């Protein structure tokens, strides 16, 4: 049926261009129109439902209230930036004053001590999630390759992976917090403890999908490829570099994509629980504030969290398409 249609359109070029034009509009309507319709319906449902949910902090926020909060959060951010500028100005004056009195003083500029705005929190969360994710990848991929190559190692490590894989971030967090505070003692710390806590928790939770997918990918390499490597007598490292990695890349990336979404979810939960800076803290602070605007601010954060999660996933997908030779594996 399909092939006959193609033949048909080749035979009748004039007609087909008109046909294609219509199809283009059609597909544009489909690709843009249907998602828009979905979003529109969702907004209507949301607005309708919100009207009917009375909480003790007022009505559940509808789309309009949340939009207002987005604007308010942005304004707050600009106001805070102005305050920061003044803070740095005052600090310079104070440093100059002190240098006049105390010439031996090593003047330094300290970071702004004011509150983190919503935008700052987003940046903090993004930095934390990428650090945790990269650290996990750094450990997981070599480990996955090793497990994939050696059946014995796989048998040894597999039970541990299976046991740790389902552990919730909320269970790791207290342990991580205690261990970090015990081991990370420094009068002038490079990075904050809270950052380390969130980051390590993220790493612990998002390492497993990468290990498993990588090892499965490596173990499942075509026997022909392995035989080629044998015939050529490739040294072990060359074997990994030339045969294993290229063949396992689609699976490795699938694992990384899974891990990144896990990492993002885990991070928000960890930030909420431990009050570590980031979007999770923003949500918890607003919940504790209990002001009449709190719910719409939390909803704004929820939408932002979802949107960023979506963007991160797209980013990994794009990266996967880029690196992988098997384009079909990155279709979804």
């Amino acid at each position, binding site marked *: 049926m399909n092939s006959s249609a193609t033949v048909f359109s080749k035979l009748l070029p004039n007609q087909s261009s008109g046909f294609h034009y219509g199809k283009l509009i059609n597909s544009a309507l489909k690709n843009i129109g249907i998602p828009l319709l979905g979003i529109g319906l969702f907004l209507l449902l949301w607005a309708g439902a919100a009207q009917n949910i009375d909480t003790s902090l007022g009505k559940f926020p509808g789309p309009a209230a949340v939009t207002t909060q987005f604007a308010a959060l942005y304004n707050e951010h600009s106001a805070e930036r102005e305050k920061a500028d003044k803070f740095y100005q005052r600090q310079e004056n104070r440093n100059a004053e002190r240098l006049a009195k105390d010439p031996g003083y090593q003047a330094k500029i300290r970071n702004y*001590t004011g509150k983190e705005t919503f935008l700052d929190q987003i940046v903090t969360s993004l930095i934390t999630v990428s650090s945790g994710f990269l650290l996990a990848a750094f450990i997981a991929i070599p480990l996955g390759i090793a497990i994939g190559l050696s059946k014995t190692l796989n048998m040894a490590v597999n039970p541990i992976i299976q046991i740790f894989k389902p552990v919730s971030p909320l269970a790791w967090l207290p342990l991580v917090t205690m261990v970090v*505070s015990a081991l990370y003692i420094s009068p002038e710390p490079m990075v904050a403890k809270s950052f380390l806590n969130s980051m390590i928790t993220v790493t612990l939770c998002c390492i497993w999908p990468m290990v498993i997918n990588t090892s499965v990918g490596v173990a499942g390499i075509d026997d022909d490829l392995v035989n080629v490597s044998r015939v050529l007598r490739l040294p072990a490292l060359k074997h990994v570099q030339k045969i294993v990695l290229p063949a396992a890349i689609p699976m490795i990336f699938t694992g990384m994509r899974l891990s990144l979404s896990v990492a993002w979810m885990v991070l928000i939960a960890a930030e909420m*629980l431990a009050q570590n800076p980031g979007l999770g803290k923003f949500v918890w*602070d*607003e919940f504790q*504030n209990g*002001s*009449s605007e*709190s719910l719409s601010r939390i909803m704004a954060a929820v939408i932002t969290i979802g949107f960023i999660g979506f963007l991160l996933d797209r980013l990994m997908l794009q990266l996967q398409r880029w690196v992988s030779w098997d384009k079909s594996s990155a279709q979804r």
Partner: protein
Amino acid sequence: MAAIATVAASSFFTLHSSANAEELGWPEKEELTFGFIKLTDMAPIAIAYENGYFEDEGLYVTIEAQANWKVLLDGVIDGRLDGAHMLAGQPIAATMGFGTKAHIITPFSMDLNGNGITVSNSVWEQMKPNIPKMADGRPVHPIKADALKPVVEQYKADGKPFNMGMVFPVSTHNYELRYWLAAGGIHPGYYAPHKGDNSGKIDADALLSVTPPPQMPATLEAGTIYGYCVGEPWNQQAVFKGIGVPVITDYEIWKNNPEKVFGITAEFAEKYPNTTIRLTRALIRAAQWLDENNNANRPAAVKILSQSNYVGADYDVIANSMTGTFEYEKGDKREIPDFNVFFRYNATYPYYSDAIWYLTQMRRWGQISEDKSDSWYIDMAKSVYRPDIYQKAAESLIAEKKVKATDFPNFAEETGFKPAQKDFIDNIEFDGSKPNAYIDSFAIGLKQGDLL
């Protein structure tokens, strides 16, 4: 000529006394992080920051809200926080080793009063018939726990536990709620740490458990607890949300009771003496600003506190108690000008007798399981409360004319013990120098010689 002489004399005087100020020295640690819990009585910290008092001292302070009192205490102990807004009982209990052990001191008492006890709407309906009414139909205040007693007895008879919330085992709120309940004949239960029982529910009529302050209204709404004792704005929030009724403020349980303190580790004070004095100076100035000109700055303070990074509740909710009023049942707003005191009545001076009151309550409810001598109580208070640091800070501010000497206790004669006082709901007299005699004067509670 005489004028010159006066100038010379006065400049000599300033020189002499501001030698004090010069001797303050530069702060050893300039970047500090302070923790707080979302409550209006954290105001001195917020004001010291917003009005630039910390910066005037060369301190760059980051202020961080904490999830609950335990997290906050651990933060100060492990050094993540340099100092914090604390429950008065926290430094005392930590130093003593009840809960977590660490030597924490306080050079600055943050405020007087500021708490309330709220019950759920249904409990209030059951209490109401037991409360005498005024001519206009409103209930007569203060309401004693006598009115709650039949309700609790009914719950007991029905085999249902009567659950109430407070914010931390060594919180002012725990002791205030217990004080109020016990004064009305309701037993709030004993602790027995020597047996490993830190739930505080032995022999209890009302079962008290811990809930972090900002979560109180939500927990009451969920029906997990029937009432709670917490600081502001979480009592007024219950009124605004229509989920509960504050029945009494702590001002009526004990007039001008000491509330929060500013806590730092003893190690911090030793390592950074200049920083310690300087941060105390900033806090004193903030407290003074809060009470200045008969609370004229309160609306401005409320505006700052309602920012989402501080308390974050709505302006109206915070203003209800911060501007000299308190709303009990919805619409029943009464004047309590001293509900929140930050500076007057020497509110910021760390009196030993205040610490001793907390210690007596710890003994009364079994958190201190064995008898201690009067001198033990006094020594313990002296190792935690540090009026010496406060005095240095205040004197240097006086020398710089930033504050008036008359606003402070007479340091030369001050003993750190307030005169014996009787302003309690049960009229029992408290004399800080005789803790054991005070412990023995309660009808409900452990007495000398008692061991669970």
